Each structure stands twice: as structure tokens, then as C-alpha cells.
């Protein structure tokens, strides 16, 4: 992004809500420079990368500042990295509604918002959070226009920022044009780059799981890599690429391994060498079982697979997942279960399985087909290419609400539980790949003695919440 344009736009952004005026970049740089390394996201990630361990991070956010600090202080003992999950009004820039939520929450003495309205609370409230805690804190949200939120929270001392122009549009919005959200996220990345120029390290994490629902790895990996490049282009240096557990052990391990490799390849191809790359594994992001004992099983399996995949961090679910925003105790329990799982399997050697290698090659090949189509559509301009690719359905996220999304792609599990493409929509995959998916699904259909169909898709959507991986009949 052109610096002048950026700086001009900054003035507008900071004026779009009263709390914007408290942002003072130079003072913020000072604050960041004085943060001890325990509070800096990328430094903790680097330690994990170096030692081959995996870091645990929950999701958490409530309406009121002191409540939120109490919540995070409580979770800090069980987590390695902390979140501040932003409420859904702020995500839509509906700060008046967020204000209403704050007031109602103050009255009701409980949070009526599903997250922390950081913009309304402003810079000093963010500082209070960072100062109250001894671990790094990330802003986690789902905001298509996250410019003001970034300004306030980064000035507030947060050292990691989740999201991206695609991943915070397609699953999170209905009618925000993709060109706009990508553009607004170039701003965010440029802001991060501005901090990086001053030696303040801000980690960026594109949102991997997308709709969280039977997303084939190639789709999320392609988008993650593209958002990674878009971020690098603006000066981002520390990147965490994400993936949401799909459910089949082999495929999940292969997906994280493929993600690292595809990213490294393309980042190099685009001329980037000076960056820190880590990965994040999201425990199962689809519908959870309502029963807590069953939910514990889903969570702990997610912990196991996260370790086996070699991811740098794992985002942890809670036994309340199917029911509502967790209490702090439920959140702690999710962390405890996950930690136990992780520490019980972390001494295992990486699984050397041919099936994983095969799956990994397939995912990389598919991902390459998707990314290359974006590159060629954009004639080298990835932002433009991504917009055109979504229009054409070359990129297509299953079950996403956005009107930018063609929505033709339909996933179905194969007989081993791996997510395959029942309908490849317009995605530019080779015939070999298409045949591979068709065959795998046919195998299952034969086994279940029924046709692959939308009913099978629905069965798969419900499966985990009904206590199984594959949505078989009966």
C-alpha cells in the first residue's frame, strides 16, 4: 500500500469512532518496545518452534473490562497464549449496538455480548488488559473491516491479530464485497508492517477454519497461503497459518504438513525469505456434541491430533461448545483436557506413514492448482486474483454465508472419514484429482449401500455432534 494513501486513510479511520483519537503511534511503539518477551506473541511462538513444543490458546471475551481481565487472569494459569475474542457487533462495526450491549451487561451483571468490544472500550482499556497479564494476548474476531479495531488494539499493546481479507469475509459476512475487505485488510497488514518497521513484532494469523464445516484442506490451505502472501506484501514478518481439524487423523496430519510446505514454496516464489512461519491447529470447529463427556472426547482427540500434526499452537474448545459461550471453568477444563492429551502423546515420534505422505501430496497438488489459478487470474496481483477467483468459483468455501462465494462445492466424507469433494463446483482441479475424490466417495456409498447425496452431506454435518465421525445411516 502506498504510504501516503495509507496515512491519509489512517486519519479517517481514527476519526470513525471517538475512541480512535486516543491512538498515538509513537507512544504505542514505545509501549511495545518495552514489553518483556513473555508478553510478545512472536517470541513465544519462536520458543515453541525451536523446542518443537505446542502452545495452548483458548477463546474468551466478555463485555466489561474488569470482567474480561478476571477471565483472562483465571485462564492464564492453564494456557500458554491468551485471546481477546471480540463481540459480533464490533465485528460489524456496529459500535452503537456494542455500546448498548455494554450498558445492558453492566445492568444485568452478566455479559450480554459474545465478546469484548475493544473499540468502545478504547486504547487504555486494552493497555489495562495487557498490563494485567503475563502472557501474550491476541485479538481474535471475524471482522471484515478491522482497521479501527487494529489501530486501537495494537496501540493497546496486543501482539497478535487474527484475520484476513478473505477469511474474515467469506465465513463471516453476507454482503461485504471481497474487494473491500481485502483492501481493508491490506490496511491492517500495512499497519502491522508499520509497527514491524519500528521493531515492534506483531504476529498475524489468517483464520484457517473458514466455515468450520467439512472444509476440504486444499481450500483452506490455498486461502491461508494467499492471505499469508498478502500480509507479507504489506510488511508483516510473523505469520501463523491455520487449519481446522477435519476429523480424519491421516488427513489432518497431512494438511498441516502440506500447509507448511505450500506456504514455504509460494512465499519463496514471491520473493519472501525474511519471515517467521508457524502453524495453528484448531480443534474441531463444527457442531459439537451437547453432552459434556462427549465434548471432552472431541477436545482431547483434537489435542492429540494437534501434536501429531506438528502444529505450533492449538486453539482449544470447551465442554460447553454446543451450548453457549463457556464459563471460565468450562474454558479451563478444555485447556486441562487438552494439556493432558498433549503431554501424553508429545513424546511419540512423528508418524511415518505412507498414507500421510500420499494425502500430503494430494493436498499440495490441489492447493497448487487453486493458488496458481488465482495468480493467473490476477496476472500476478493476488488481491485482484482472489476476487476474480471467488467470482469464478475457482475458490469456493462450503457452507459460507457470503454472496461473494459461489457455493457450489460440496464435501462428503469418504469411508475412512477424510473430507472429499462430492461436488468440485468450478474449482480448477485436474481430472485425476476429481476422479480420486469421486472414487473415494463411491467406496463409501457402496459400503453404505446408498447414493452419495445432499442427505449424506447433512448426515456428515451432524455426525460429530451425534457421536461419530462419518454420518452413516441408521
Amino acid at each position, binding site marked *: 500500500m502506498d504510504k501516503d494513501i495509507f496515512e491519509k486513510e489512517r486519519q479517517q479511520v481514527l476519526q470513525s469512532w471517538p475512541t480512535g483519537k486516543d491512538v498515538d503511534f509513537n507512544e504505542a511503539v514505545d509501549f511495545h518496545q518495552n514489553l518483556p518477551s513473555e508478553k510478545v506473541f512472536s517470541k513465544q511462538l519462536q520458543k515453541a518452534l525451536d523446542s518443537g513444543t505446542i502452545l495452548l490458546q483458548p477463546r474468551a471475551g466478555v463485555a466489561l473490562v474488569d470482567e474480561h481481565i478476571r477471565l483472562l487472569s483465571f485462564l492464564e494459569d492453564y494456557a500458554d497464549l491468551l485471546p481477546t475474542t471480540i463481540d*459480533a*457487533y464490533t*465485528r*460489524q462495526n*456496529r459500535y452503537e*449496538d456494542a455500546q*448498548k*450491549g455494554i450498558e*445492558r451487561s453492566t445492568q444485568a451483571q*452478566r*455479559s*450480554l*455480548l*459474545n465478546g469484548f468490544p475493544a473499540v468502545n472500550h478504547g486504547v487504555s482499556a486494552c493497555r489495562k488488559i495487557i498490563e494485567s497479564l503475563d502472557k501474550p494476548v491476541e485479538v481474535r474476531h*471475524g471482522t471484515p473491516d478491522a482497521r479501527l479495531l487494529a489501530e486501537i488494539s495494537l496501540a493497546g499493546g496486543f501482539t497478535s491479530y487474527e484475520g484476513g481479507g478473505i477469511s474474515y469475509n467469506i*465465513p*463471516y*459476512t*453476507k*454482503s461485504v464485497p471481497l474487494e473491500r475487505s481485502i483492501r481493508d485488510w491490506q490496511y491492517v497488514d500495512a499497519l502491522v508492517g508499520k509497527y514491524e518497521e519500528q521493531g515492534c513484532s506483531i504476529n498475524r494469523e489468517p483464520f484457517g477454519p473458514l*466455515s468450520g*464445516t467439512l472444509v476440504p484442506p486444499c481450500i483452506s490451505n490455498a486461502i491461508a497461503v494467499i492471505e499469508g502472501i498478502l500480509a507479507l506484501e504489506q510488511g508483516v514478518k510473523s505469520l501463523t497459518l491455520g487449519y481446522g481439524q477435519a476429523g480424519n487423523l491421516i488427513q489432518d496430519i497431512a494438511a498441516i504438513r502440506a500447509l507448511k510446505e505450500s506456504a514455504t514454496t509460494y512465499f519463496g516464489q514471491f520473493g519472501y525469505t525474511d519471515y517467521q512461519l508457524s502453524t495453528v491447529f484448531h480443534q474441531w470447529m*463444527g*457442531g459439537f456434541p*451437547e453432552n459434556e463427556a462427549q465434548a471432552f472426547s472431541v477436545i482431547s482427540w483434537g489435542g492429540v491430533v494437534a501434536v501429531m500434526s506438528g502444529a505450533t499452537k492449538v486453539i482449544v474448545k470447551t465442554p*460447553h461448545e*454446543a*451450548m*453457549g*459461550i*463457556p*464459563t471460565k471453568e*468450562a474454558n479451563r477444563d478444555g485447556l486441562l483436557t487438552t494439556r493432558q492429551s498433549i503431554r501424553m502423546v508429545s513424546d511419540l515420534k512423528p508418524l511415518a506413514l505412507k498414507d500421510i505422505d500420499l494425502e500430503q501430496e494430494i493436498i499440495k497438488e490441489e492447493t497448487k492448482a487453486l493458488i496458481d489459478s488465482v495468480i493467473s487470474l490476477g496476472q500476478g496481483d493476488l488481491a485482484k486474483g482472489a476476487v476474480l477467483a471467488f467470482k469464478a468459483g475457482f475458490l469456493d468455501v462450503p*457452507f*459460507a*454465508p457470503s454472496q461473494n462465494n459461489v457455493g457450489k462445492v460440496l464435501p462428503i466424507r469418504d469411508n475412512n472419514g477424510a473430507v472429499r469433494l462430492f461436488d468440485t463446483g468450478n474449482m480448477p482441479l485436474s481430472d485425476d484429482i476429481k476422479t480420486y475424490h469421486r472414487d473415494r466417495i463411491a467406496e463409501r456409498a457402496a459400503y453404505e449401500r446408498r447414493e452419495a447425496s*445432499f442427505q449424506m452431506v*447433512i448426515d456428515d*454435518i451432524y455426525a460429530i455432534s451425534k457421536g461419530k465421525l462419518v454420518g452413516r445411516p441408521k
Partner: protein
Amino acid sequence: MDKMQVVLGVIGSDCHAVGNKILDRFFSDNGYSVTNLGVMVSQDEFIDAAIETGAEAILVSSLYGHAEIDCEGFRERCIERGLDPIVLYIGGNLVVGKNDRAIVEKQFLDMGFDRVFVPPNTELIDQAEILQEDILKNRDLSTRAI
């Protein structure tokens, strides 16, 4: 007999799309003509669509926990805009947090919803029949009112 008209959507700033797609399919497969507004639907958008299509029921989803705020005055607004009687259903994870189902149900019944579907009561089984009964009851009422 003509298919009964219903309007479906996810209210507020809520982006949860998966359940919505399944509900669309479920009610369509079970004899209704569904106008699906998708996610992020405001009260007035629901009402506009209901008026436009002559719908006899509005099926609201809310997953993200803000239904208390988003649904405030929804029944009153319907009446105000002439939708009376109209069947109002709501389902999903209505409030923030894991709460006692009975309390949440009562809260939304008090707000004027005819039925409230919160977990573990969200599985789609006989909702199609129940809806038909409720619509027919309303028709009956309207006839008698005349």
C-alpha cells in the same frame, strides 16, 4: 392445497449459515414454501419479506448469543406493521452462555415467540407438523375473529 409460506433467516449480526441451510432444506422438503433470507437479517427485513410473500410464519434463528438484544420488540413490530396473527418461532443458542433451557424458553415465550427451540431441543423431527398446526390454529383464529 397451496404450500404454506414461511420466512426463514438468522437475525442480527449473526453469520452462522450451516443450520440455516439445513432448515431451508428441511422445511422445503416437508411441504413449505420457504423464503430464506440467509444470515444477518434485521427485524424489518423479516417483516418485509413476510408481507411480500404473504407468509404465515417467521422462523428466526440466532446462534451467536445476541438474540436477547436482536429480538427486542419483534412481536410488537410485527403487529405494528400489520402481521397479526403470525407464527413466530425462534431457535438456536439464544443467549450468551450455557443456560438453563427452561429459563431461556420462558424468556423468549414472554417476548412473544410462539415456540422456542434451544439445545438439547433443536433436533429436527416433528417441527414441520407442529408448525402446520400452529399456522392452522392462527387461520382458525382469524376466521373466528372475522
